[in-house]
């Protein structure tokens, strides 16, 4: 019968999809391993005192919309960054809370008659202030235009050749900027560098900086640590080795200003402006045949509080999937482009199949197998093999990611922390991973039906 052939084919498809996806991740981890080895060797030498210094000046941009509660603390901590020369530009995106008032009160802002150079077009800038206590702090007050427009205004006002976009919920370490800028020092072709998000729940903080990492008490946050190690951290490190990293958290990234201006700045029509910018930089530079590097920095440089409730995490993953879909579809010309190299022929198709559409196949695979088994269409042997492969590969990947972490940064130094993580990498595959796939699938559906 026809439907049996279909069902048979589907069984094979889902099984092979799971195998292919996990083999892809494993290959990425192997690439990461090589990259990490080189990186850690370089790290050893770069940390010697004679090799420090000479960092280029940098403009730190903070887009702020109704951030009265946390903006002052963030700026105060950024002012203490361990970096030779930097300026901070807070761009207030027409907030209707007390963001501006809080900044004015804390940093003694005075009106500053700046000859604002609008290299990227955007909503009108109303006023520019400068702190009388901190000459390297300016605040731009503009009409509400969204995060991308706000960042573009910051780029227009930036004085230095590099800029760093920092979101208001960021938690940094005092040396975060030094680490993020290192790729620019080591390779003059670098146009952007970004790091992975690390989870800050229950970590030790002092003066707004993270001083000691700790594991969160919340199980959900703990699972997100494992997830971030597996997908965002060592996956990106592998792609970085091929100069094909497409997904970098935009919450903390350093960019060469002129290249971003040349690319037209952040795109205001997509919610995933930070992710999209990375893809567009690849797009522009690959197609022009310009040599360049977009580097992923694996160091722990940027931390954020992870959601501890399922509802909040679900919302976050839905938004993430939506943003990913946007940034890929806007740059679809890059897919299988003759000039696109590893980005067009490896990273883009991989991200499309396993990250963008992946949650759909993963969720449907599980649903199909469970329903098939429950209805007796799929034998218990086939069902068991499917679970063994899907969960076995998942565990293998998570353990590999933890192994890479152990080979490199040892962020969690205590033995009890390692034990807790070892348990988490195994448990993560029983429920958490599947739930995240489902939420991302919902994000994908929402993008399809509401774009």
């Amino acid at each position: 019968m026809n439907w049996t052939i279909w069902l048979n084919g589907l069984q094979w498809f889902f099984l092979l999809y799971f195998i292919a996806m996990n083999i892809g991740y494993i290959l990425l981890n192997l690439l990461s391993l090589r990259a990490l080895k080189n990186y850690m060797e370089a790290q050893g030498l770069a940390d010697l005192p004679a090799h420090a210094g000479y960092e280029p000046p940098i403009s730190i941009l903070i887009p702020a919309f109704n951030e009265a509660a946390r903006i002052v603390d963030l700026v105060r901590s950024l002012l203490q960054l361990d970096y030779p020369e930097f300026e901070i530009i807070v761009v207030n995106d027409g907030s209707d809370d007390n963001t501006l008032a809080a900044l004015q009160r804390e940093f003694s802002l005075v009106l500053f008659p700046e000859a604002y150079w609008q290299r990227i077009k955007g909503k009108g800038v109303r006023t520019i202030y400068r702190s009388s206590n901190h000459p390297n702090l300016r605040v731009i007050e503009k009409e509400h235009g969204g995060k991308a427009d706000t960042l573009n205004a910051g780029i227009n006002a930036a004085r230095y050749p590099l800029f760093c976009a920092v979101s208001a919920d960021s938690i940094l370490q005092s040396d975060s900027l030094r680490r993020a800028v290192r790729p620019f020092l080591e390779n003059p072709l670098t146009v952007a560098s970004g790091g992975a998000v690390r989870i800050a729940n229950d970590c030790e903080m002092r003066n707004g900086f993270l001083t000691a990492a700790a594991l969160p008490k919340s199980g959900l946050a703990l699972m997100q640590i494992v997830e971030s190690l597996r997908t965002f951290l060592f996956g990106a490190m592998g792609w970085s080795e091929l100069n094909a990293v497409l997904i970098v958290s935009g919450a903390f990234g350093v960019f060469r200003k002129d290249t971003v201006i040349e690319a037209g700045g952040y795109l205001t029509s997509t919610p995933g402006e930070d992710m999209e910018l990375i893809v567009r930089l690849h797009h522009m530079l690959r197609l022009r045949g310009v040599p360049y590097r977009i580097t992923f920095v694996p160091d722990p440089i940027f931390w954020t509080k992870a959601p501890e409730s399922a509802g909040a995490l679900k919302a976050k993953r839905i938004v993430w999937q939506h943003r990913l879909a946007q940034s890929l579809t806007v740059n679809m010309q890059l897919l299988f482009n003759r000039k696109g190299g590893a980005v067009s022929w490896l990273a883009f198709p991989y991200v499309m199949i396993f990250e963008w559409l992946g949650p759909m196949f993963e969720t449907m695979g599980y649903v199909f197998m469970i329903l098939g088994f429950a209805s007796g269409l799929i034998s218990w042997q086939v069902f068991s093999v499917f679970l063994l492969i899907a969960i076995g590969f998942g565990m293998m990947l998570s353990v590999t990611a933890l192994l890479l972490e152990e080979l490199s940064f040892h962020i969690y130094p205590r033995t009890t922390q390692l034990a807790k993580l070892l348990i988490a990498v195994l448990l993560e595959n029983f429920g958490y991973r599947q739930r995240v796939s489902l939420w991302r699938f919902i994000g994908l559906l929402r993008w399809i039906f509401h774009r």
Partner: protein
Amino acid sequence: MSLAAFSVPHLKLLLWVGVAVVGITMLLLVQTVMLRVQLILRRRREQRLAALWQPLFAQSMAVLPQSLPPIARSDWDAFLRLWNNTQESLSGESKHKLNQLAWACGVSHAAQQLLSQNSMRARLIAVTALGHLQEKNAWARLKRMADDPHPLLSLAAARALMQIDAKTALTELLPLFTRRHDWPLNKIASMISEAGADAVTGPLTLAVESAAPEDFPRLVRLLNVAHSEQALPAIRRILQSAADDRVISSCLQTLTDPEDVGLALAYLRHPSWFVRVQAASALGRIGSKEDLDALIAPLSDPVWWVRYRAAQGLASLPQVTLDEVRQIRDRVNDRFAKDILTQVIAEKQAS
């Protein structure tokens, strides 16, 4: 009805794949735990070594200890790292005294043995140690390593050569400074400044004079760590005859002598905006009140950076007061010139 989707061999194959994956996962788990155990043991060993040797390092600054404990073969890696890090934190005579202790411990022999290892990390440690030790016997091997395609190893070897004999090393390394674009300029500058301006000024100036236009900006930036006044005659000659924009722009950045005002003035109307920017900056740096009028025209330049540097230059000319700058702002008709002067006045007031 059960769907007989898989033949028994297929199912068996997939089952074995699954079992293998789970088996590998367990091995990886064990490996992770082993790594942690190794890390703990290594840290303990390092702490033990540091507790033993750091007081001896401190003592050797005054007088070389009479007897030194033997260093086990397995401890050499950690010992050399400790010794390298201590050397990096010292300067002058103290470095020399720590070297005496190293000679007594047999650091040279151990480092040269590590140099032959396959591990890049071990070779980096050894190269760094041989540099600090100024071990002339390692010169030939280090020279070969300076040509290694690996940027870190070659750079570390270049630094070691500079530490051993800066003048001789510079003649070997100058072509590499321009050719090796994988060597970050800041690291080259760092090793040059370690050697001291006296040692590097002469060879660098000669290299600058004969550099190709594409190499010129890189070399000129290194002049910042040399005695730039000694290089000035060469810079002047180049500025008077240069045709390449990059060369002119780089030379203008090095001008510090008021006698060279004429050179800066000559480039204020250059077609390349980045030359005009540097000319305006140079004029602000070395010009006098007499040059004030020359900086008014660039205030209306189409490029923001030229306007900004001209305004900054104008406001920083000696004997030019803020009131005079305000008067100029009120006098000029161009809106861009007014705006940029207003900004620079506000900056001056705030600083």
